[in-house]
């Protein structure tokens, strides 16, 4: 129970999504500034919990990902003016994170078109960083190996799913699973993301979609502050329904019935004569059979749009009658 825990926080810093989030037309508008102050308070309480707790903050920006702060290499940063009213480690962390975000956002200003946020980059960096700190501590001595046990990753997401990143996200999830790293996801703004739901489900973390977005800090503290060892004693909210749909390789649509190549397991949204991944040719007979048996309705709305559908659909009359 007294183990220190490591938290890697991934901030989704998509300017356009944050602009939408702050719009007063929302029921609970949440501007980035308020968001950041909530998050910093949360991080402060993580550090305050135990002296050995470690922390790393990563930012997923449009087209790039960076490390904003890490508690292990703090020394290089520039001087922060002393403040008698603030606990110095808090002050130091807050100002470094805020300054780095500001610097990065300033760099963004020059870009015209906004590429999607580099969530995968941030996630893999967080994994590599956790790998590094667990490696270096476990080697040095038996006592130290307790430090930085229990690593976890918290993703504060505002952007929608990027279907082209399906494979790298799944690969990252499996490596997290292998290394027993929990991935928590808090969906601060926007529709549910199928991939992050799966990430939380597969690694044993929780996925929370905010109802009252102005109460972000309360959500963060109540559900994400307790370290994994503590969670077995408290009722952490879990998501109720997990959507196991995948993205097809041809159009990157998210499909619930797909056509799968037996050689390489590539998923296609419609029967294709040749597999685009491994160039295997499929028998004509299979194609005809599949085309004939293909359900008309799901394929029509499956390929109609490139964006994920809201996951409320799959309750069909059949299941309703079974209940």
């Amino acid at each position, binding site marked *: 129970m007294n183990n220190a825990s490591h938290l890697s926080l991934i901030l989704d810093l998509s300017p356009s999504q944050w602009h939408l989030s702050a719009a007063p037309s929302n029921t609970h508008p949440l501007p980035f500034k308020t968001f950041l102050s909530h998050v910093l308070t949360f991080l402060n309480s993580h550090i305050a919990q135990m002296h050995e707790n470690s922390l790393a903050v990563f930012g997923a920006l449009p087209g790039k990902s960076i490390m904003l702060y890490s508690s292990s290499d703090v020394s290089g940063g520039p001087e922060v003016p002393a403040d008698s009213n603030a606990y110095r480690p808090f002050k130091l962390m807050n100002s470094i994170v805020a300054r780095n975000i500001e610097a990065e956002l300033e760099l963004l200003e020059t870009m015209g078109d906004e590429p999607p946020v580099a969530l995968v980059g941030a996630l893999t960096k967080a994994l*590599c960083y956790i790998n590094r700190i667990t490696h270096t501590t476990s080697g040095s001595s038996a006592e130290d190996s307790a430090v930085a046990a229990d690593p976890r990753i918290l993703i504060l997401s505002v952007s929608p799913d990027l279907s082209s990143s399906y494979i790298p996200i799944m690969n990252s999830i499996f490596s997290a699973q292998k290394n027993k790293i929990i991935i928590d996801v808090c969906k601060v703004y926007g529709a549910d993301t199928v991939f992050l739901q799966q990430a939380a489900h597969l690694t044993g973390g929780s996925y929370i979609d905010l109802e009252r977005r102005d109460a972000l800090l309360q959500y963060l503290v109540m559900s994400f502050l307790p370290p994994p060892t503590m969670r077995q004693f408290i009722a952490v909210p879990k998501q109720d329904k997990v*959507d196991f749909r995948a993205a097809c390789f041809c159009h990157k649509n998210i499909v619930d019935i797909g056509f799968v190549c037996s*050689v390489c397991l590539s998923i296609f949204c419609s029967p294709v004569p040749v597999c685009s991944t*491994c160039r295997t040719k499929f028998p004509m007979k299979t194609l005809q059979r599949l085309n004939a048996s293909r359900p008309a309705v799901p394929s029509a709305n499956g390929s109609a749009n490139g964006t994920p559908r809201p996951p409320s659909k*799959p309750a*069909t009359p059949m299941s309703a009658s079974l209940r």
Partner: protein
Amino acid sequence: MDPGSDSDSLDEGVLTVRGRNKAARAKGVDPHNDKGKAKAKEQAYAWEANFTRSWDTVQEDEGGSLQGAVEELMARGRRRRLLAPAAAIRRTIIRHLILLLDLSSAMMDRDMRPTRFDLTLEYAREFITEWFDQNPLGQVGVVGMRGGIGERIGEMSGNPQDVLKSLSERHKLEPAGEPSLQNAIEMARSSMSHLPTHSSREILIVFGSLTTVDPGNIYDTLQSCIKEKIRISLVALAAEMKICRELCDKTGGQFGVAMNEGHFKDLIFELIPPPAQRAVARATGGGTTNPAADLMMMGFPTRLPDTAPPALCVCHAELRPAGFLCPRCGAKICDVPTDCDVCGLMIVSSPHLARSYHHLFPVKPYIPISSLDGAPKPTKHCHACSQPFRAQATASLADGMSSLGRYRCPDCSNDFCTDCDVFVHDVVHCCPGCEK
């Protein structure tokens, strides 16, 4: 600080020793060629050879440090990755395996601790767990051979729990009588005859006896296995028998004789990664259509939580809260992967498929950087874990290692440290720079 770093290198030194041990042991394995056998002949018997202490093979350098040995080991790992064939190999992803366990009285021998039988059961359980981890779409059945007949212990199943359950009751598997290879193989063969062509059919035999009592000609069984493209692999616990080797060689499987407990485990765990699909299958089917390949329709279900209102499932007709909904007909199913009982759709969860994608899209090997002259503005930190790079190049390095500890991705030209290079290629399978 000093003592810390000292114990660090010592730790890794031990690892090195173990690695070498393994390499030395692996020499005993000879997958379907006779080279290893000839080699073994030259060495006469193991007990006649000079006893080499594993710790003697690790050489300290002038400073008394093991760093050199450790780095050499890592370099070897890197080189192996670079040597991996760039051309695509087709691996069988949907596998079907029958685990054939010898339950004859020969398995009660105590040459492996505690007995051959107990050890086999223990390793079989570990094997099943690991096998399903790497082959999530595969199915395993268990057949035992005792008292001269083949005995079905576990039906072919895609659920590791079912298979483990069939192996869990030791008293039901108590060894007795003589084994019959032919009877057992025939039983395994008949339970795989209905499988579709795009999946693999494999038999793994753990054989402890030196005899087999067969009702007919076992070579007929061998011929029919070849015809049905069943791959037989065999791990012998006692000694090599001609028929065992022939079974493996003719069907393209692997044969090995376990020398000790560790070697036994290595031998059976070698069969876990999906095998490369045999060229024969491609040669006969190549051209316009390939019978070994097929397009399959699969459904990705929605998972219901434990808190959902209980409903009847179609597989057991029991009231349960949790379960999966078939995307086509909405029927409720207890477990995936399976075929929907109502509409017959193959239902898998997408993570099951995704688990094998890293075989398909591997990360390109990083290039070791040994000088910073070309780069206009070298980064100071590892792109992935932000660890600072060392400024001075270290002398005396093995081939394929960077003297600066920098490895560059050929696509995104970001630099990574040694640890991240290994971690990215072996675990994450996704480059943090290019995000794919």
